[in-house]
């Protein structure tokens, strides 16, 4: 659509044959409305991005609903049960418990092997929610293939999280508008990030954590330019999910028994839990990596390897069906274990088996989310620590369930290196404000301890393998050319008033570029200049762009570094600048202030993270 207008203008020459048509009456009120909007609201590209973020949030929620329905459908097809994973595994015969994840592994492996042949991509183990923004293009086919593979692993009880494919699908959908509208990379990245936030938000019914997950883990920045759209996408996604009561409506994901601190000293055991989680978390990460290495060294081909991973989960499920699935229902059992339905010995056994199952699933190369399994490990750890304190001081208010909550947050903070997200995530999925003090304490302690022991977060490896840093480095020497949107709408110097008016109505800019027949830039027509004459339609008969041209409009060259460009924008009140070839002065494109600010925000983040141990870890 960008260059369509250059053809609507009649070519110069044979001027006598040209008749300037009278301004059509319906254009005048439209143009007046356009002036009114531009003066009252002055919509910037960033505000328009916000609208796209909302759309992306909606799309992300729909894809989540679809994926859940699909995984329930596959689960029903393979197991013949429409109950939750742990329940349906409990109902099964031992041989079925063994066979189901094994068959799932074969199907998941086959999907990857044959699917990746179609997508022509190499598969590597990854935690899917560690989405890499790159230039804002999420590959379509390999996203579908990986999500399809994850679908089989999830539906057959693999110890893996649904949130992975939800994030992947949502981000993939989000990358479509950027490609379609040919946005420059910073804005495409932001909108993909919005998709990822919508995926997390709809997986956990937790809009704040959705936005923070992406801000802390994927973007590494809580700058308002990017955080606003993330929040917007998260909220829209959550609101959409809540329209479906089968997804829990507006209820928190995990209902928790009431909790309160009775005495100030009671916070100390939680601080101790933070220390334990902070030390345990790096070992959990190392264990997962060890599993990956062992499976890799075995050199078993993909399909039997995933089948083996499934078989290990299946064998554990023969004794403890609770290991099946992402751990959601087991977390709920732990949190509600007020009356000790699960003795600590049983819980310890389930806890250890679950860790083994998670290692087997991820180690075998199954794709999916590692987030919910991590929540389970954290809550199990917390509960066990709590049980010890409870037995030491039975008369105190120290309930193991509360420890499970704090353990969940502390372990999450320590594995993801995103303490802010962890605090708010636990708060959001439980909506229990009383827990906030011990939770914050535990999360922060665990985070600080863990980064000392293990500089790489759970997602560092995945992000590195997906090439997150390649673009980050590219980002640090961007020029205007990289941010430019090519072929902006422009009119010829001979364009009549009607054509100028049409352009202002169909686009949201305030300055219309004027070029000659070879696309050399001549100046701009300002919407505000024509505003006073909208009541005089007779003007349209004789006015052309040349008559109202502003020739002193600032322009920019494609090779200008970003900082210099920002300086140029500082002296100009418009939202965009035309990009001209330095020697020929041909109009190449336009660059918007919002994209420039996003790129600079991205870059300063990159500078920080490359000096921060987390992202630089190898």
């Amino acid at each position, binding site marked *: 659509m960008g260059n369509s207008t250059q053809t609507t203008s009649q070519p110069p020459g044979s001027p006598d044959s040209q008749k300037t048509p009278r301004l059509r009456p319906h254009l005048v009120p439209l143009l007046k409305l356009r002036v009114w909007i531009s003066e009252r609201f002055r919509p910037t590209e960033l505000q328009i991005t916000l609208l796209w973020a909302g759309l992306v949030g909606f799309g992300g929620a729909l894809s989540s609903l679809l994926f859940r329905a699909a995984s329930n459908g596959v689960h029903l097809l393979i197991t013949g049960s429409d109950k939750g994973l742990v329940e349906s595994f409990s109902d099964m015969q031992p041989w079925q418990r063994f066979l189901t994840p094994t068959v799932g592994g074969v199907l998941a492996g086959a999907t990857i092997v044959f699917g990746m042949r179609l997508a022509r991509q190499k598969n590597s183990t990854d935690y899917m929610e560690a989405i890499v923004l790159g230039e804002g293009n999420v590959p379509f086919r390999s996203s579908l293939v990986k999500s399809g593979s994850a679908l089989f692993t999830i539906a057959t009880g693999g110890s893996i999280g649904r949130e992975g494919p939800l994030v992947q699908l949502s981000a993939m959908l989000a990358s479509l508008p950027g490609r379609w509208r040919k946005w420059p990379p910073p804005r495409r990245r932001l909108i993909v990030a919005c998709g990822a936030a919508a995926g997390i938000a709809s997986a956990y019914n937790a809009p704040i954590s959705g936005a923070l997950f992406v801000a802390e883990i994927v973007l590494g920045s809580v700058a308002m330019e990017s955080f606003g759209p993330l929040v917007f996408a998260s909220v829209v996604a959550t609101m959409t999910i809540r329209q479906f009561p089968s997804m829990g409506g507006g209820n928190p994901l995990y209902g928790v028994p009431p909790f309160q601190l009775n005495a100030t000293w009671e916070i100390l055991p939680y601080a101790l839990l933070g220390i334990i989680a902070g030390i345990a978390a790096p070992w959990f990460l190392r264990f997962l990596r060890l599993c990956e290495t062992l499976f890799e060294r075995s050199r078993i081909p993909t399909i039997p390897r995933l089948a083996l991973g499934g078989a290990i989960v299946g064998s554990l499920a023969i004794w403890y069906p609770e290991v099946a699935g992402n751990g959601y229902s087991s977390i709920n059992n732990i949190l509600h274990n007020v009356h000790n339905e699960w003795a600590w010995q049983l819980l310890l056994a389930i806890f250890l088996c679950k860790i083994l199952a998670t290692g087997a699933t991820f180690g075998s190369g199954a794709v999916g989310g590692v987030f919910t399994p991590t929540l389970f490990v954290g809550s199990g750890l917390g509960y066990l620590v709590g049980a010890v304190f409870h037995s030491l001081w039975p008369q105190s208010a120290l309930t193991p369930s509360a420890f499970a909550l704090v353990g969940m947050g502390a372990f999450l903070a320590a594995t993801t290196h995103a303490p802010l997200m962890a605090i708010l995530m636990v708060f959001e999925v439980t909506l229990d404000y009383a827990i906030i003090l011990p939770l914050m304490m535990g999360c922060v302690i665990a985070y600080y301890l863990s980064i000392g022991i293990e500089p790489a977060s759970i997602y560092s490896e995945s992000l590195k393998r997906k090439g997150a840093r390649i673009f980050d480095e590219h980002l640090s020497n961007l020029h205007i050319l990289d941010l430019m949107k090519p072929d902006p709408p422009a009119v010829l110097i001979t364009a009549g008033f009607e054509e100028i008016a049409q352009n202002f109505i169909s686009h949201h800019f305030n300055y219309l570029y004027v070029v000659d027949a070879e696309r050399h830039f001549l100046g701009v027509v300002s919407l505000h200049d024509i505003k006073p004459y909208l009541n005089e339609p007779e003007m349209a008969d*004789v006015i052309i762009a040349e008559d109202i*041209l502003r020739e002193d409009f600032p322009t920019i060259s494609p090779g200008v570094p970003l900082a210099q460009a920002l300086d140029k924008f500082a002296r100009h009140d418009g939202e965009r600048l035309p990009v001209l070839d330095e020697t020929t002065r041909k109009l190449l494109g336009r660059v918007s202030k919002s994209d420039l600010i996003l790129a600079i925000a991205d870059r300063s983040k990159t500078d920080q993270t490359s000096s921060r141990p987390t992202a630089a870890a190898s």
Partner: protein
Amino acid sequence: MSSTAAQLLQPTRILLDIAAKDKNDAILEVAAIIRADPDVLDYGRLCTELIARDELRSTAAGYGVAFPHARTDAVREIIIAAGRSQAGIRFGDELVHFIFVIGTPREKAGDYLVAVGTLARLLRSGNNRAALTQAATPGDFIRALAP
């Protein structure tokens, strides 16, 4: 509003009978009235730019009136000269009876818009054009525009 354009029109800047038959000659003939005006800084350049603008896109408005104009540094203030041709002059397909030559300083595009807007509104009316056709003196001509 109509007074703005009428004030700019002075009896000395009105030519009741254009002799030229050719479009460019006619524009120059009308422009010649203001040749010696103190607001015209560079008459030669004004003429060149008037013709160039009309070459870019015809300045005939579609009802027997043309507004040859130029945004140019060759004038100090907005200036208008008018001419009438009973026989009519061909501006492409259109037969033009009234020519309003307008010069505006480059930075004052707004003045030009006001003048053209006002004149265009007045001249759209068939009655007004009839009155201009019948005007016997430059004074009548101006009164027909600002009754």
